[in-house]
């Protein structure tokens, strides 16, 4: 599914790399977690995969299903099935949720979206993520609470049906009930589309009580320093990044 090979990247027009010699392989149907202290490049990684304009890849490669995506535009990466659930979703005044999502579905599917089918599907999905129907006609994320923004990301995910999902700190800004609802929707999606791969970026293992990963990676000093199972996440919660010897005991996830 997704292979990151010896990746080097930096913010454009700066010198220092944020990630260096970073490698990770995520296969179909796998769930991976990346944890790490603040400022180690977790969110940068997610944006680089998506093709964010601020970052420059200076070495290595990112492949989706064996093909490099580095030369693809952001929208082409999305059309290939990559979905970034953003930490702080953008507010866009004047563009309604319905107009935006109908356009996006049309572009991703390559077909004209039937209005009746779209509304029915949207109503069902909004009901499942517990979002009020009136948000359909509101400007994109305008006036939404932190929780509503995150639920709106999950709604988009359900409608666009990606095959590789990145959750960038989904749990920030979500209360316990909302997190449970968001995770239930993701688990239902993974059950319906079992080949989907998931990369979770988080500080806290709370989300992992709802979505169980196979692999937990510790990102520190620009690359993955340690890989383990879910027990590693709980160990970090207990001991902190300084308490766990993250510089030793690399385990391959392949």
């Amino acid at each position, binding site marked *: 599914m997704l292979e990151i090979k010896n990746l080097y990247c930096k913010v454009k027009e700066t010198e220092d790399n944020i990630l260096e010699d970073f490698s990770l392989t995520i296969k179909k149907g796998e769930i991976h977690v990346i944890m790490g202290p603040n400022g180690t490049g977790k969110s940068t990684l997610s944006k680089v995969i*998506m093709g*964010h*304009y601020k970052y420059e890849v200076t070495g290595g490669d990112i492949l989706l299903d064996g093909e490099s995506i580095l030369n693809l*535009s*952001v*929208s082409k*990466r*999305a*059309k290939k099935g990559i*979905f*970034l659930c*953003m930490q702080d*979703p*953008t507010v*866009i*005044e*004047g*563009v*309604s949720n319905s*107009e*935006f*999502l109908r*356009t*996006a579905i049309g*572009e*991703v599917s390559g077909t004209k979206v039937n209005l009746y089918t779209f509304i029915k599907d949207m109503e069902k999905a909004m009901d499942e993520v517990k979002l009020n129907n009136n948000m359909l*006609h509101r*400007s994109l994320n305008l006036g939404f609470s932190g929780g509503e923004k995150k639920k709106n990301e999950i709604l*988009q995910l359900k409608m*666009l049906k990606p095959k590789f999902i990145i959750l960038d700190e989904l749990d920030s800004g979500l209360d316990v009930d909302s997190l449970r609802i968001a995770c239930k929707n993701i688990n239902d999606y993974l059950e319906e589309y079992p080949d989907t791969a998931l990369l979770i970026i988080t500080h806290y293992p709370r989300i992992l009580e709802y979505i169980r990963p196979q692999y937990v990676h510790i990102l520190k000093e620009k690359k993955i320093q340690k890989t383990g199972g879910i027990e590693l996440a709980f160990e970090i919660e207990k001991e902190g990044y300084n308490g766990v010897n993250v510089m030793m005991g690399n385990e391959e996830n392949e």
Partner: protein
Amino acid sequence: MSKILYVIDNNTKKDYNYKIEEDTIIYHFSINSGSNVLIDLDKEDISLYYYYNDINYDDNIFTIKVNHNKSNTHSELFNHGVNVKDNELSFKVEGSVLKNSAKCICNQDNQIINISDGKSTICPNLLIDNYDVDSSHSAYIGKFKDEDIFYLESRGIPEKVCYKLLLNGFLINSDSIEYDKIKDFVLEIEKI
């Protein structure tokens, strides 16, 4: 229930004078035009919502002045312009509250998006001669934000289509606007 007016300018230069005596919404659409708008709020307890949306190709000036001649009057101005070519577009926007007009609300929001490297200016003025007034103004000149384009693109929408979505949202900035009354303007957006 507010009175609703539609004004469409297409390659003209006009003066408009309004004496407002009831709650009023004015949707003013402009294609490559300049205009002078003078509004007098002449009755207490009334409101005015003014939506000016402009597609500009040549050098043009839009001037609007709202006089709060009575107490407890309320004005909200939303002036949006898209400067398409390398030319000059100016907004001169003035809200005036007289000494005897208390408890007025006088707000203005002004934005110009430069598609090319045109020169745009906004002069937002508030002339307030009363201590009991709620008033604000804002002005933005620039491009559409890169972060907005990135967000839309990250959902599979190509860059060109992103701009169309943003232009539509920017220039038709009220849910209540009836599209069939502004067909020419909608077609003009498609040409940008």
